[in-house]
């Protein structure tokens, strides 16, 4: 690339046509023909531009004219050259400015892209934070709801306990009375059948009352939510209670096999542990859909720590679902029938007891949930 300050050649100062114009004008003034060359010629007069010879002028007819005419051309070239230099410099500057503008434009676009990326990252972070807040709110709501249910259950249990107490004691007394009446009217066959039927009715009522009392007792254990400190819990007892509650929920249609070993007791929150067992058992019950079998095992695991295994041969869990099984609000059940919190709560409760929960499952084969206590 040529620079504005490179020494110009003759053609750059005066185009060939302009040179011809100039020679014609000189001929008009002097009456002689001149010749102009950009290469050194013998007997020609050098025409200089900024100390450099740029042209060689000759006039064969009158060589005397060569020197003054060369000075005249130099005078003209000075002004042509000034314009040339200024124009070249201006061109150089315009090009450099344009290149600089393009560079700045590219830099601007770069920075714009960077800021867009940054804003996207920020947006993602905000979205993630919002999600965390929503989750925490849901969990809070859920735990408040559970506590309310627990309190309600505890109240109901307490209120039912009293009437159940005197109903069952009255029923016992009534049975004794009936026995005496039966003896008093001995032989009267007309009343005999009635009395026997009456005795059967009372027996059935007493057994019903027993069942109510047992449900109330389970409810009390389950709702024991506000226990602030760890207390000694018998895991087998809690498992029994949870199974009873589950059976009550599923109309005593479940096939549950209990293999409870001698695992002693651990210290913890009984209500929360019951909830863990209930949640896992509830999942198993829904998986078997009344057709399969649930097995509950408690035993001394590795290093003498107790562990509870709850397994079923129900529908199983798909690999994709298994990956998200502990995610809050992840549920495969229809909207409204599951909160998606059951196993989340279970895992958190296990962590609070220095324990862990693990799940293995194959679709169509069944599921095994292992709860290890630390």
């Amino acid at each position, binding site marked *: 690339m040529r*620079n*504005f*300050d490179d*020494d110009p050649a003759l053609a750059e100062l005066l185009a060939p046509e302009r040179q011809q114009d100039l020679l014609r004008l000189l001929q008009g003034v002097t009456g002689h023909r001149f010749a102009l060359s950009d290469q050194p010629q013998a007997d020609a007069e050098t025409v*200089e531009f*900024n*100390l*450099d010879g740029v042209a060689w002028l000759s006039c064969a007819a009158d060589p005397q004219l060569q020197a003054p005419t060369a000075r005249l051309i130099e005078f003209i070239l*000075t002004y042509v*050259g*000034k314009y040339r*230099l*200024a124009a070249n*410099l*201006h061109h*150089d*500057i315009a090009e*450099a*400015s344009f290149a600089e503008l393009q560079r700045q434009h590219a830099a601007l676009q770069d920075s714009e892209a960077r800021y867009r990326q940054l804003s996207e990252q920020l947006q993602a972070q905000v979205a993630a934070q919002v999600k965390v807040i929503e989750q925490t709110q849901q969990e809070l709501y859920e735990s408040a709801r559970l506590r309310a249910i627990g309190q309600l259950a505890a109240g109901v249990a307490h209120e039912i306990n009293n009437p159940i107490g005197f109903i069952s004691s009255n029923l016992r007394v009534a049975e004794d009375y009936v026995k005496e009446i039966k003896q008093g009217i001995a032989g009267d066959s007309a009343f005999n059948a009635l009395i026997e039927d009456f005795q059967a009715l009372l027996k059935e009522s007493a057994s019903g009352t027993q069942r109510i009392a047992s449900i109330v007792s389970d409810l009390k254990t389950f709702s024991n939510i506000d226990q602030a400190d760890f207390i000694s819990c018998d895991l087998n007892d809690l498992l029994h209670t949870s199974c009873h509650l589950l059976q009550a929920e599923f109309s005593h249609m479940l096939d549950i096999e209990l293999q409870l070993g001698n695992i002693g007791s651990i210290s913890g929150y009984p209500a929360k542990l019951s909830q863990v067992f209930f949640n896992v058992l509830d999942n198993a019950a829904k998986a078997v859909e009344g057709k399969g079998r649930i097995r509950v095992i408690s035993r001394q695991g590795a290093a003498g720590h107790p562990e509870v295994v709850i397994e079923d041969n129900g529908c199983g869990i798909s690999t994709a679902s298994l990956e998200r099984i502990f995610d809050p609000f992840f549920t495969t059940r229809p909207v409204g029938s599951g909160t998606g919190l059951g196993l989340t709560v279970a895992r958190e409760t296990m962590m609070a007891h220095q324990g862990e929960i693990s799940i293995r499952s194959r679709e169509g084969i069944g599921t095994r949930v292992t709860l290890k206590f630390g």
Partner: protein
Amino acid sequence: MIKKAFANMSEYIPHERKLTIKVVYYGPALSGKTTNLMQLHTLLQPQRKGELMVLETRDDRTLFFDMLPIGLRSESGLELRLKLYTVPGQVQHDSTRKAVLARVDGVIFVADSQPAQQDNNANAFDNLADNLQKVGIDIENLPLVVQFNKRDAPGAVGEGELQSRWSDTPWSPLCMAAAINGEGVVESYRVLLERLYPVLDREFQLAEVEHISADAFVRQLSRVG
């Protein structure tokens, strides 16, 4: 024509035996760069001296540049061309300054001695350093002379103060000038030639091949009257 791949201009064209050297007068607006060049044009009587080319001006201010060509033909037949340029000092003409500064071999920085102009001097010097860097020249290795002009102005900052302020820089000692009266102009120019010679000698073996000594180089290019 063989072009060198260096950022500096000094250009040797072997078949013409021609070496062109570019010197730029740089500095803040109205510090007297053009005056320096006009005085050199008047005072110098070198072997060959071209016309002072003053390009477009507006209100007597330089718009593009001024240029004074000086020529010397050594006994060995080397054509030496020294092209002295000025740049426009006004802030808005920065692209012009950068374009003129491209491939420069030596700079004479013309500063203004008036106390009110000291900030402008500093800004212009920073601008020189910036632009040199942009055109790929290292200011530390460039032959550079700092001239404090307008010594004749009333209230000019004292020479002692200026000299001590610049004493830690590679450009000390400073040259003092009153260009309007022709004082210090040729002297500053000579100091630059002295600093220019070793650089050119390293590259073109001026002493060894062309038999041009430092003394002859300075003397012949700055001959007066």
